[in-house]
């Protein structure tokens, strides 16, 4: 299966009378790896939610593989697009393999449940993330980092070709952050999965993502490779910090 193509045409989203996203245009080619940056309240999560269909845009269209979002059947969309939340809370005791199995919900038979092909996908996903040793543990007893890996395995089992991640590394230590980034890069290059992630760590983003999207106050103000996007002026303007504190792709940002 090839990666999915994502296109946004003039997306605006209102929460009540407040416009939180204003005319976003965006195109991601199959297998592209992009990171959405911006200060708190810039509209990053809202943009992900508009793409996944969780909020309805006031204007504009989201197209996945050229087809408007509204025209997808729910399970068909879920087979194409997966969302990784920053935090996952399960209400009841649940084993890791049972959590991963939930990734097969859009594929499995509605009444008979997972079949052989689903079980193979679950095993593959657990293998790929390297959490075989956690397989029978209770999700709620895992560390936040291990839990996030289990959620990533569930996403792999879902087999989607477009991944939206909302701060996937927020609870992870350095080792797990890097592992997660490498996994995303691997998914993009090897399986040509299209990846759009929201991150807060500018350094991590500029190191691992060839394309950064900078969102400020509901508008997309820059789009391109890290050094072109994260200029000292923009860092000062958008985040209101001294750019000397920021490292982009391994070296400090030089004031202009």
């Amino acid at each position, binding site marked *: 299966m090839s990666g999915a193509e994502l296109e946004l045409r003039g997306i605006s989203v209102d929460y009540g009378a407040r416009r939180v996203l204003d005319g976003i245009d965006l195109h991601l080619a199959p297998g592209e790896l992009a990171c959405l940056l911006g200060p708190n309240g810039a509209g990053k999560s809202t943009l992900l939610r508009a793409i996944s269909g*969780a909020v309805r845009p006031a204007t504009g269209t989201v197209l996945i593989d050229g087809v408007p979002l509204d025209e997808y059947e729910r399970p068909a969309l879920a*087979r194409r697009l997966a969302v990784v939340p920053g935090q996952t809370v399960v209400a*009841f005791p649940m084993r890791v393999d*049972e959590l991963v199995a939930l990734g097969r*919900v859009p594929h499995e038979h509605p009444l008979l449940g997972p079949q052989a092909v689903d079980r193979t996908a679950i095993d593959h996903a657990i293998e790929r993330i390297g959490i075989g040793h956690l397989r029978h543990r209770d999700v*709620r007893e895992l560390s936040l980092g291990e839990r996030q890996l289990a959620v990533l395995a569930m996403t792999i089992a879902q087999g989607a070709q477009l991944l939206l991640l909302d701060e996937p590394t927020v609870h992870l230590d350095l080792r797990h952050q890097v592992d997660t980034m490498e996994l995303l890069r691997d998914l993009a290059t090897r399986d040509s999965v299209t990846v759009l992630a929201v991150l807060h760590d500018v350094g991590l983003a500029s190191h691992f993502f060839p394309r950064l999207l900078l969102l400020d106050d509901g508008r997309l103000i820059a789009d391109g490779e890290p050094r072109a996007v994260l200029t000292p002026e923009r860092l000062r303007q958008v985040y209101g910090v001294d750019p000397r504190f920021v490292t982009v792709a391994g070296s400090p940002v030089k004031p202009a």
Partner: protein
Amino acid sequence: MLLASVGVLLLLVTLVVGVCFGNVSIAPADTLVILGHRLFGWPAAVTWPQSSEIIVLELRLPRVLTAMAVGTALSLAGAVYQGLLRNPLADPYVLGTARGAALGAAIAVLLPVQVALLGLGLIEVFAFVGALLAVTVVYRASRLGAFSSLTSVLLTGYAVGSLLAAGLAMTMYLSGDNLRQIFNYLLGSFALASWPQFAVSLLIIAVGSLLMGSRTRSLNALLLGEEAAAHLGIDVRRDRLILLTGATLVTAASVAVSGLIGFVGLVVPHLVRLVVGPNARLLLPLAAVYGAVFLGLADLIARIPGELPVGVVTAIFGAPFFLYLLRHYRTGYAL
């Protein structure tokens, strides 16, 4: 599979034992022959008095079957409410069914007319309608959005429940000589079970159970929350309504025929989850079977010393057993 087989076996044993024992003693051998002779046409010489046959077939058998159907209904509804609300403390009465039904029954007791149709008196009908109305009000009043925090539903349920409780207290206060009748209803009992009543409640419980059983996939996805379930391709609004409707129908039917029986709907789903985990495809069928066994046995225990309220029995025997399991059962599913 093992658990399912053991459950079905227990179900049959409970059924037979439940029919054999009661406050009129009939030899178990006679009971079995009566059942076999009348239900399956076994050739047997009639050596028992007519009264034994009436007790077994017209009193005990519908009673045991009703208890089992209600046990199934309450366990399923409990499992579904817990899953939908993502709250381990939820039980079938959480959205106001109990108090709606109680108020309905109390009002029926006070009405001067007495009508009965198909073994269902005014009390049963009013209780059923009261339970449905209560949940409808809660559901409407909490204005569920696409992905609402279900805390608002719980709080609305609590608020509406308190209002109904006030109405119930008022009705009981005004009821005078009828107080005991209302009180008996509130404690729960299968003493008045009959074939027509069993048939009507079974029909409603079957429909509700099918509704819930058809949505196991959605219940599984909902373990991660409503938005995550939507991202897994679930139509959350529609399936939430289907599950709520099923759970509420079976609860209302149960409350109508048996009064308020606590504990079953809270504990049986948890017991099953402790052993097989949260997967609804295993949880629902096993909760249905073990709920039937649990309430069938509880009713048996309730009638051996005379007539105890069955709700008292479920609590007396269920609570310590549950505490024991919580402390000693280790399967990796720490609760």
